[in-house]
C-alpha cells in the first residue's frame, strides 16, 4: 500500500514536471498580466511616474467620462449591425453550399479565402473599396444610379461600413454552419418531405431549430469578437486618418482603451476600462446562456 502511494506520488511529480513549462508560461504571460491589470486598475500610473493607489477612483471616473459612453455606444452599434449580418450571411452561404452539386468545394474555397487575408491587409483593401471618389463600391453604385455616401469619411456611415466589411470574412461562420448542417440527420428532412412540407417549412421547423446550438455558439463568439473590435477601427477610421476619425464617430471601446493606455499613458484608467469591458461581456454571455433554454434545441432534448 505504502509502496503504491510512493509510486503514485513519484508519478504525480513527474507529471507536474512535464507540464511545468506550460504552467510557467501561463503564469508569466497570461495569469500574471491579468492579475497585474486588476492591480493597475486601482492605481494612477503613467508608466514614468510612481504608482499611486486611488482605490475605485478609476472606476468612478469612468462613469463621468462622456467618451466612455460614446465608445460603448459606437461598439454596440457595430455589434448590432455586424453580428446578425455575419450570422445571416454565414447561414445563407452554408445553405447554398450544402446541396451536393458539382463545384461546391471551389465555391467553398472562394468564400473562405478572404478569411485567411490578414486583418491589416483586409482593412487597407476596404479603405480603397469605400473611397468615395475612386473606390470600387461607389463606382458600382454609380453604375446603377445610386449616389454612394462618403462611407469611412462620414460620421453616419463609418460604423456601418466597418460592420459590412465583416461580411467579407464570414468564412469561419459559414464552415461552422456547414458542419452543423452535416450533423442534422437526413431522415428528418425526408420525413418532413413525405409529410408534404415545402423547402421553407423544412427550413423553419427542422433546419433552424436543429441548427440552434450552432447559432448559439456562433452568436456568443461573434458577439465577443465584435465587442473587442480594434484593428479594423484603428486602421480604417476616417479612411486611415487616425483615432476615431471622423469626429470620434469610429471611436470603438478598445480603441479608446488603447488611446488611454498608449497615447495618454493612463495605464490605471485603461486597465479599469478593460475590466469593465470584461464585465459587460461576462454579463451579456450570462444573459444569452440564461435565455438559451427558450430558443436552443438539442436533438436529445
Amino acid at each position, binding site marked *: 500500500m505504502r509502496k503504491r502511494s510512493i509510486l503514485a506520488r513519484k508519478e504525480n511529480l513527474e507529471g507536474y514536471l512535464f507540464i511545468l513549462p506550460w504552467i510557467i508560461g501561463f503564469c508569466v504571460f497570461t495569469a500574471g498580466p491579468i492579475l497585474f491589470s486588476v492591480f493597475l486598475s486601482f492605481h494612477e500610473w503613467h508608466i514614468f511616474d510612481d504608482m499611486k493607489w486611488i482605490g475605485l477612483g478609476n472606476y468612478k471616473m469612468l462613469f463621468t467620462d462622456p467618451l466612455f459612453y460614446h465608445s460603448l455606444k459606437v461598439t454596440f452599434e457595430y455589434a448590432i449591425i455586424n453580428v446578425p449580418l455575419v450570422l445571416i450571411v454565414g447561414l445563407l452561404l452554408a445553405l447554398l453550399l450544402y446541396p451536393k452539386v458539382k463545384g461546391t468545394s471551389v465555391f467553398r474555397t472562394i468564400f473562405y479565402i478572404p478569411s485567411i487575408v490578414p486583418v491589416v491587409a483586409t482593412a487597407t*483593401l476596404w479603405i480603397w473599396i469605400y473611397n468615395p471618389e475612386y473606390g470600387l463600391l461607389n463606382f458600382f453604385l454609380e453604375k446603377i444610379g445610386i449616389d454612394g455616401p462618403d462611407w469611412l469619411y462620414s460620421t453616419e456611415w463609418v460604423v456601418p461600413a466597418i460592420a459590412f466589411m465583416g461580411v467579407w470574412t464570414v468564412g469561419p461562420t459559414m464552415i461552422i454552419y456547414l458542419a452543423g448542417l452535416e450533423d442534422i440527420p437526413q431522415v428528418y428532412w425526408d420525413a418532413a418531405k413525405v409529410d408534404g412540407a415545402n423547402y421553407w417549412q423544412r427550413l423553419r421547423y427542422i433546419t433552424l431549430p436543429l441548427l440552434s446550438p450552432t447559432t448559439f455558439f456562433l452568436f456568443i463568439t461573434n458577439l465577443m469578437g465584435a465587442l473587442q473590435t480594434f484593428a479594423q477601427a484603428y486602421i480604417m477610421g476616417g479612411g486611415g486618418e487616425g483615432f476615431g476619425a471622423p469626429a470620434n464617430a469610429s471611436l470603438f471601446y478598445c480603441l479608446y482603451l488603447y488611446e488611454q493606455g498608449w497615447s495618454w499613458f493612463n495605464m490605471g484608467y485603461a486597465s479599469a476600462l478593460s475590466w469593465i469591458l470584461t464585465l459587460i461581456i461576462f454579463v451579456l454571455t450570462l444573459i444569452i446562456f440564461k435565455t438559451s433554454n427558450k430558443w436552443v434545441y438539442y436533438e436529445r432534448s
Partner: protein
Amino acid sequence: MKKGIYLKYLRTLFLYIALITLSIAFIMPFLWMVTTSLKSGEDEIFSYPP
C-alpha cells in the same frame, strides 16, 4: 414526373446563379488586391474607373 425534373434543373440553375453572383462579390476585392500588388506607381493603382 417531367415537371419534377424541370423543377430540379431550375433549382440547380438558381443555386449556381446565386453561388456565382456571390462568388464574384467575394473574389473581386481579393483579385483587386492581387492585381494591385503587381502594379507600380500611383497613377496605375488609383486609376478611375478601377
